Each structure stands twice: as structure tokens, then as C-alpha cells.
């Protein structure tokens, strides 16, 4: 009968389709273990001619001993530090709560106690990866790539370049999200009494992954300096030695990483008050403080155009992000330029991409006319971005007085902030002053720039090219080898 035959065919088709999904379950990585920094290990392995496999195995053993696994994370204990010759138990106090780590770790589940666990995998791991390496399943399709926590570098924070963020900084990013990127806002969690407490475990777990990853990086770095023998010999010394020596020590590296996290709360950049800061540009423009705003914008524009501030080298004269410098973020430079790999040459970087890194993508300067600020749109946020820089990105910190006697004043920074705040409104609220019609307030400000020659600040050669490229400030602030790395658009 045809009816029977048709129905039989339907059964066969359905049965085939039910089998198909099984083929999707095959994966190379495992949720039960952290992925090592494969690129770094292989680069050291090649330069030192040691076995990458041996390094990986040794590293995994040590890291599991200190930090556990994704399902059962372990936070370094005072006893472990003491055993390693580090008598600083205070480093561990109130940085991470091991109980909260348990909530964030492992697979997503709600146990019999009705408490939800596995929060990191629920909310973060698809992009940031199980290891926090910023190379989760979806990462390759995202722009920009998700953050790799293992460097200990975070972009949007209240502390200067090179410092760790505070818990409040991480909380702010979680709640606010990052506009124009794949980082969502988790503000909705606070709307439910059942999820309100999920932030703290997530922050604890991010700090845990960052500390773990940074220790791993430092150990691999030590390996590259001392070679396999020295490293191998050094590692067991944690278990028996009480006196620090010159060899790399896991406990010492852990302590150093923890110390930097502990310091963060004392390194918060203070933002001085400014009477224009808390009012919107629209309000200021239509209110009695318009003249003050105009003056600040004019001063800000001059500062913006100065070679010494180096703003225009990336953001361009117009502030549209069309400057000449093409640069990469620090995460990309780690495995490309600093390892002798040309990020613009596919044949060079392609071989590393299978080890857990994406195609090198230049870090594009922000179009300031768009009025979109990823690190927060308040005046105080902008002040911190300018005064403190954006860690890991080519955006340098502006040297400030009094820490740097020849640096800029906080009023200079505020003027820049007001100029930047005004740029998105430049067509809606065009200035009526003579300075605005100048194609470049920047050009007029060259003389002003002389008083704060970047060369004097940095003790670098005073060649104008060096200043024009804006490389000096960035180089000294991030300690990077920026001048050698940058390329210019023809």
C-alpha cells in the first residue's frame, strides 16, 4: 500500500536525522582540564630546543597541583605558599572566596540545595573559554576577540596601565557590558532575587583564571630563560626549600601575581572634581556654563592636536579614528611581533593559529564622533581612559603631574575630556569661535606642545618623527617595544 510505504519512508528519514546530531559531539578539547598556553609553550620550545610535550606535561602537573581543574578549582593556600618559602598569607585574604569559586566552576547545574552552580560556563565560557584564554568556541567569529584573562591585563578599569583591576571595575563591566562588542550586560541578573548573588562568584572565578593564567605564563617565561633543566630543577624546590633563591619558584610567582592583584585597590586613579563633568553637553550648551564649555573645548582641541599628546596619530586630526598608525593589542603582539612573527604575513602567523589564537586583527582607534565609549561614557570614565590609558591597547596613559613634573595637569585632561564629549555633537552644536574654523587647532598648538616635549619626558631622541608617531608615550607606559612594531598605512 502506498500509504504504508510513504509512512515507512518517513520513519527511515526521521531515524536517519536522529542519528545525525551524534556526529556533532566530537571535540578535541576537554571541559575537565585547562588548556595550556600552547602558543607560548611551542615558541619557547622552538627557541630553547626543548620538548613542548614535556613542558606541557610538567606545567599541567604543577598547575593542577596549585590551581586544580575546571570542575574542582583550587585556590592557593597559605600553607602552600609557606611551603614554597613565601611567608605572606595576607596575600590571600579577601581576594577570592574559595566557596564562591565552587559556585562558578564546573558544569551548569542546580543541585538539591537549589543553588545554581557552573555560572562561568553558563555565562562566560562560550566566548572566554574554559581556561579563560579568550578562545572559547565562539571566539573566532567575534570582533573584537573576547578577552584572554591569562595576561592579567584588563582594558576598562580605574587603575593605570600595568595595574590589575579592582573588583568594582570587573563588576562595572559585568553590569554595563561593552557596547558594540559581544560582551553583554548582565544587569538583568540584579533584577531577580534568585540571581542577584551571581556576580561575586563570576568575579572570583575571573580573578582565579587570571591569576592561574598569569602564573602559568610566568613559569613558561622562566622556562625560556633557564631552560628545561633549570626549570625542572627549580619546580620541586617549592616543596622543600624555605629560602628563596635565584631559580624560578612556583610559590614566588604565585605570590608576585597575588601581590599585584592585592595592590590594585591602592592604585585607583583619583578623578578630581570638575564643574562641567556631571552635566550633559546639551545642558551645558543651553545653560549659563556655555562659555566655560567652549573654552574647555578650545583648549581640549589644542591639546588633542599636539604631537606631544599623540592623540591624532591614531584618532586622526578629525578624531574619526583615521590616524596613520596601525597597531595591535598586547595579546596579539605577545605571540606575533615579540616572537618574531609578522602579523601581516599570513604564511607566518597561520601556523600558530591552530594552537589557540586568532588571525591578528589591528586594534582600530575609536571614532570619537560616534560617541560610543566602551569603557563607560561618564566624564569620569573618559578622564580615566585618558589619564590612565587603556591597558593592552595602543591607547597610552597621559603622564600627569605631580608624579611626572613635566607631565600634564588634571585640568588638561578635563579639557580633553570635554573636547571628546563635544565631538559627537560637533555638527549639532558647531562652535562659533575662530579657533573652530581653523583646520587644525592642533597646528596652532604646536608651540604649546614644545613645553612638554615628549622627548624630554622620555629621554628619547628628539626627532620630530618620533614625536609625530606618538610612539614614545605608549612605549614608555606599556613598556612595550612599540616603535619597532608599528607600521604606517601608505
Amino acid at each position, binding site marked *: *500500500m*502506498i*500509504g*504504508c*510505504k510513504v*509512512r515507512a519512508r*518517513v*520513519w527511515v*528519514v*526521521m531515524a536517519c*536525522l*536522529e542519528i*545525525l*546530531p*551524534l556526529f*556533532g559531539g566530537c*571535540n*578535541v*578539547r*576537554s*571541559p575537565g582540564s585547562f588548556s595550556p598556553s600552547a602558543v607560548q609553550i611551542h615558541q619557547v620550545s622552538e627557541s630553547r630546543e626543548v620538548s613542548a610535550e614535556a613542558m606541557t606535561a610538567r606545567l599541567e602537573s604543577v598547575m593542577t597541583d596549585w590551581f586544580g581543574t575546571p570542575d574542582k578549582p583550587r585556590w592557593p593556600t597559605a600553607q602552600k605558599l609557606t611551603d614554597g618559602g613565601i611567608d605572606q598569607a595576607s596575600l590571600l585574604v579577601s581576594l577570592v572566596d574559595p566557596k564562591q569559586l565552587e559556585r562558578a566552576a564546573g*558544569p*551548569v*547545574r*542546580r543541585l*538539591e540545595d*537549589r543553588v*545554581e552552580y*557552573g555560572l562561568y560556563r553558563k555565562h562566560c*565560557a*562560550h566566548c572566554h*573559554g*574554559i581556561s579563560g584564554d579568550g*578562545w*572559547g*568556541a*565562539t571566539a*573566532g*567569529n*567575534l*570582533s573584537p576577540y573576547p578577552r584572554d584573562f591569562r595576561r592579567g591585563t584588563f582594558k576598562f578599569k580605574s587603575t593605570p596601565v600595568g595595574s590589575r583591576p579592582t573588583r568594582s571595575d570587573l563588576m562595572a563591566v559585568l553590569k*554595563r*557590558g*561593552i*557596547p*558594540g562588542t*559581544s*560582551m*553583554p*550586560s548582565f544587569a*538583568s*541578573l540584579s533584577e*531577580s532575587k*534568585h*540571581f542577584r548573588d551571581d556576580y561575586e562568584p563570576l568575579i572570583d572565578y575571573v580573578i582565579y583564571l587570571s591569576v592561574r593564567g598569569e602564573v602559568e605564563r610566568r613559569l613558561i617565561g622562566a622556562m625560556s630563560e633557564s631552560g628545561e633543566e633549570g626549570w625542572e630543577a627549580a619546580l620541586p624546590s617549592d616543596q622543600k626549600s624555605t629560602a628563596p633563591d635565584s631559580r624560578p619558584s612556583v610559590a614566588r610567582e604565585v605570590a608576585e601575581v597575588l601581590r599585584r592583584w592585592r595592590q590594585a585597590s591602592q592604585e585607583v586613579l583619583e578623578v578630581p572634581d570638575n564643574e562641567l563633568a556631571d552635566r550633559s553637553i546639551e545642558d551645558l550648551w543651553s545653560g549659563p556654563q556655555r562659555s566655560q564649555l567652549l573654552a574647555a573645548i578650545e583648549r581640549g582641541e589644542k591639546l588633542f592636536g599636539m604631537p606631544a599628546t599623540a592623540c591624532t596619530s591614531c584618532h586622526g586630526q578629525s578624531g574619526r579614528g583615521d590616524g596613520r598608525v596601525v597597531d595591535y593589542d598586547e595579546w596579539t603582539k605577545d605571540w606575533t611581533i615579540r616572537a618574531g612573527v609578522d602579523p601581516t604575513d599570513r604564511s607566518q602567523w597561520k601556523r600558530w593559529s591552530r594552537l589557540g589564537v*586568532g588571525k591578528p586583527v589591528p586594534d582600530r582607534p575609536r*571614532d570619537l564622533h*560616534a*560617541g*560610543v565609549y566602551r569603557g563607560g561614557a561618564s566624564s569620569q570614565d573618559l578622564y580615566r581612559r585618558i589619564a590612565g590609558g587603556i591597558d593592552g591597547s595602543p591607547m597610552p596613559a597621559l603622564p600627569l603631574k605631580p608624579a611626572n613634573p613635566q607631565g600634564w595637569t588634571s585640568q588638561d585632561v578635563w579639557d580633553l575630556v570635554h573636547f571628546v564629549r563635544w565631538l559627537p555633537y560637533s555638527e549639532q552644536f558647531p562652535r562659533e569661535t575662530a579657533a573652530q574654523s581653523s583646520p587644525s587647532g592642533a597646528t596652532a598648538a604646536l608651540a604649546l606642545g614644545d613645553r612638554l616635549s615628549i622627548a624630554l619626558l622620555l629621554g628619547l631622541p628628539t626627532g620630530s618623527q618620533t614625536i609625530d608617531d606618538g610612539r614614545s608615550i605608549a612605549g614608555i607606559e606599556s613598556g612595550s617595544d612599540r616603535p619597532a612594531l608599528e607600521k604606517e598605512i601608505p
Partner: protein
Amino acid sequence: MNRSGRGVDAKMDMVDSGLASDPNRDVAMGRVRFWARLLAFFTFPLIWLGGLVTTQDAGMAVPDWPGTFGYNLWLYPISTWLLGPFDLFVEHGHRLLATFVGLLAICLVGSAWRPHVSRSMRWWSVGVLAAVIGQGILGGLRVRLDERVMAMIHGCTGPLFFAMAVATAVWAGRTWNSSKLQIGQAVPGRWLWMSRAILAAVLTQLVLGAQVRHIVPWALPSQFTFWVHLHLTFAAVVTLLIVAAWLGRWSKPLRQSKAIRWPVDGLAALLLLQLSLGVGTWFVSYASPWAISLGGLDRYVLQAKGYFESWVITGHQATGSLLIGLSTAWWLWMGEAGRRSGIQSEEGVSTVAGRQSIRASLPGGASQVHGTIGIPSTVSAGENRELG
């Protein structure tokens, strides 16, 4: 199959599918139709709720199965369910609705295993019941084993069960059991091919979409990229097929029969909706890769597990199921129209003659067969009432 073989099958099929006039049979098929429609109607929200489970990552919100936190599923305190965490609300709600759909499947079997219902329909209804039980067990295994792969399989078999429910409703439906599928001329073979191809493509899309949706965090980015690209490729294939079908709606035989034309319109409308939801799903999940260059989009901040986002993402998955359901119905209707009216091959040879030859051999001849194949004019007004 040769023409004579097909003709004999067609004869049996007509008897099998209820074309022969029999009041008892009409009543029996009416009951089957009622439960089949109810089953399909409630399976769709079940799929939607299942999609929400995935969107909210609520698959393990209840750690035990078949109970809920030690309670019998139906006795779990309603206040704790409604006022508890949203993931618990969604997961437990999904289970409750699933058991209700299971009950409907039992009712379907009860209605099918009565006198005057064809044997194939009886066993098909048992298959439907087995499928819903199997689907429930798959869901239970996903919880008991805590395996994302099981969640993916469960997510794929859900829409397949929906397709089965739709097929049941189609077979028990009035269109199937009347002369509406008898369109007065042979159906070009390309239309049969088209209906099969669309169904195959949307089913494949279902599996590919499930691979994207259920990707595990520890999968390699290259794996995710692979599934995304394949999903996009098949989206293009589905689009081309449905657009081609829709452009042909003014040609014979679709122009002459509303019964096989409206599903094409429906597919085209669903496709538009689905493409929009697909783009939206990517955007609310991962933002636009071109946000910088597309002014305005770079202001958008994704909301994790947000209300609007959940609607878009789950809507994309649910609309995919609707496409599968409608494709299934169209495929069955086109096939049946081809069987009753003959199939026009590329060379222009029709099988209508073979069809007509069986007419005389049917019990009672044309007078007992509604809309006898290829000869609608022989059917009297009184006989033209719908049987099933």
C-alpha cells in the same frame, strides 16, 4: 515503480486513506483528526518552551528526572514553581507540558484503535506515542547524564516529533480525505521533487542549527565556524528552493489548487520571518562583526539572558520547527496530489491513464469514490461533501 504497480497502490491507498464513503469511518476519522490537531497544536508551544530551556541554559535547572526535586512531577508545589528562579520555571514548565502532550498522544492512539480506522493509521499513532515517550526519555537522559550532546539530540528530535504530529493531522485531515488534492491534471514531477527537496533542506537546517546552538564551550572555534558557515549555506539553499517554489505558484498545477498552493505562500512568509530572526539571533547573541562600520549598531549593548533576546533566539528555533511542519504537510499533499492526479514526467508522459484504469476496478466504481482520480466531473454534488 511501473504504472500498473503504482495504480494498484493508488487504489489501495484511496481505500486506506478514507476516500470511500462510509459514515462510520467519517466519525472515526473525525476523532483521530481532533486529537491529531490537538497534538500538533500543543507540540508547538512545547518546542518553544524547549527552545527557551536552551536559551536560558536551564537544562539542568532541575537535577533529577522524572521527578522534580524529589517530588512527583505533577505534585511539585506550584508556588515554588511559579515564584522560583526563572530557569526552574522554564524547565519544570517544559516537563509539565511534555507530559500533557504525552497524554494527548495516548488519546490519539485511543481514537485510532477503533473500528473503521485504517491499520496503517493505527500503527502510525502507536509510533507517535512511542516517539513522544522516546523524546521524554531523551530529555531525561540529558538530565541524568548531564550531557550537552543529549540536549542537542533532544533538540533535534523535538521538531521531528512536531513533523510527525503534523503528518498525523494531515493524514487525518479533510484535505487529505476529500477531493481537494485531485487537481484535474497531472502534477509535474519537478513539483514533487521540489517538495521533497524543501523538506530535506529544512530538516538539514534543523540539525545544523542545533549544532550551532548547542556548541559546547570547549569546542574549537574552527568547529563553531564550520557549523555556522554550513548553517548559512543551507539557509541560502532553503531560501533558493522556497523562492523558486513561490515564484512557481502561478504556474500549473499550483494555480488550480488552493490546497497545494497555500503552503507555498506560508513557506515564503515563514522564510522571511525566519531569515529576519536568524540575523536577529546572531546580532543579539554575538553583536554585529561590522558594528564599527555600521553607525548606530556600535551603541547596542547585548543583554545576557535578556527578555527581548530570548524571544528572538527562541523564536528563530521555533519558526524553524514551523517551517519543518509546513514543509512536511506540503510534501505529503503534493505527493498525494501526484498519486491521485498522475505525475507529469519531464518528457510529458502522464500516469493519469494508469490511475483512471483502477477506477473501474474499485468497489462501486466512480459513484462510491469521491472525486475519482482525474475525473472530477463524475462526482455528484452530494458525494462531494468531505468525508473525513
